[in-house]
Each structure stands twice: as structure tokens, then as C-alpha cells.
């Protein structure tokens, strides 16, 4: 869960260190205090969401995260995520590296693809967009976006009007 979130957050431009996964057993009050105090200090140093080093502004993040949340609810993405979790569970090796590699090869690509699809659609819904506009908002490359747009075009979902791409039939 945490690794998938981290990779998706990073992809959206959020510093993945904003997400912490820690363990404290019921008796470990002092450890908990240490963990929380430390964590708050780290987040304070990072600054507000969207203003941390390398983070795009809040407006951009909001669009990306909105699409990411939606993507996280899409059966295809969840199947990839669940299937990977199942595989890890059956094989029983939970090393950090194995999880990181597995998520980046088995879960993340589907997740990113879906996030971009949803986000491009959301953007176009707001009005015609040039690919360069979409690059700024989604953080994806031109080539990747052209691929998505031409797929849309083939399915008759969107078209290039010359002054930008628009959604059809909406």
C-alpha cells in the first residue's frame, strides 16, 4: 500500500516523504511520541503541500491527485494492485526491494496510464487544450500524451480542432 502510494505521489509531483508508515506497539508510547515529533518536524521542513522543493503548485497537484484518486478506484488498476499483493503474499518475501521492484513493474504503469487517461479527459472537459498545456498539468511527456490523445481520437472520444484538443459528444 505504502509503496504504491509513494510511487503514485512521486509521479504526481508530491514528495513521497510526506507519507509515513511506522510501527509502534501498544506499549510504546514514547516511541510513538518520537515518531510523531520527528515526522511533524520533517513535514514542517518540507513546507506546505505543493510548495516543497520540486513540487508543482497546489492547483496542478489538485488536478493530478483528483485523477489519481479516481484511478485508484478503477477495477483495472485495483486488479493490478490486488494481484501483486496476492503474489507477494503467496511467495511470502516482503523485502523492501522486492516490493519496490514489483510495484514499479506490475502496479505503477497501469496506475499511471489510468491516471493520465482520467486527467486528460478531465482537462479537456474544461475546454480545448494544446498538448503543451497538458504537459504542464499532467507532468507527462508529449509523446505519451499524443498516444493517449490519438487513442481517444480512434475511439471517437476527442479530436484536434486546430486550436487544441476537445472532447467529443460532451
Amino acid at each position, binding site marked *: 500500500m505504502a509503496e504504491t502510494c509513494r510511487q503514485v505521489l512521486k509521479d504526481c509531483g508530491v514528495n513521497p516523504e510526506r507519507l509515513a508508515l511506522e510501527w509502534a*506497539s*501498544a*506499549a*510504546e508510547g514514547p516511541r510513538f511520541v518520537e515518531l510523531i515529533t520527528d515526522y511533524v518536524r520533517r513535514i514542517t521542513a518540507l513546507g506546505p503541500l505543493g510548495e516543497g522543493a520540486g513540487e508543482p503548485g497546489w492547483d496542478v497537484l489538485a488536478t493530478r491527485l483528483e485523477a489519481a484518486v479516481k484511478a485508484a478506484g478503477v477495477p483495472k488498476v485495483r486488479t493490478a494492485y490486488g494481484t501483486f499483493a496476492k503474489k507477494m503474499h503467496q511467495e511470502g518475501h516482503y523485502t523492501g526491494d522486492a516490493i519496490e521492484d514489483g510495484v514499479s513493474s506490475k502496479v505503477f504503469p497501469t496506475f499511471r496510464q489510468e491516471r493520465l487517461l482520467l486527467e486528460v479527459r478531465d482537462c479537456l472537459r474544461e475546454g480545448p487544450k494544446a498538448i503543451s498545456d497538458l504537459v504542464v498539468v499532467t507532468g507527462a511527456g508529449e509523446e505519451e500524451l499524443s498516444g493517449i490523445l490519438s487513442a481517444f481520437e480512434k475511439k471517437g472520444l476527442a479530436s484536434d480542432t486546430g486550436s487544441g484538443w476537445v472532447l467529443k459528444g460532451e
Partner: protein
Amino acid sequence: MTDKGKQGAVLVLGGGVAGVQSALDLADLGYYVYLVEKKASIGGVMAQLDKTFPTNDCSL
């Protein structure tokens, strides 16, 4: 119902881990339990142990 006037209650002497576990099981088995402890609270030495081997999880 009771033969020879048997009492459906048990006195457990000692509120350490063994006493408490006995009391819980006996109550679950359908008996009333008096848990008699010398000290002001139950738990015994177990409550003093930090972590328990080998699982190292909390003892309470």
C-alpha cells in the same frame, strides 16, 4: 439442578497472569469467579515485563 449442592462458583487466588487467565476461562465456561488479589490491582509480574520473547509484543 445441582447434585449434592455443588456450587457453580470458583475462587481464584492470585491476580497474576495465571490467575487472570483462569478467571477468564472459568467465567467463559459458565462459572462465577471471585478473583482474590493481595495487591490493589491485578496483573502480577507480567505487567512489569516490557516485551515478551519471542514475539516482543506488548504483554497486556
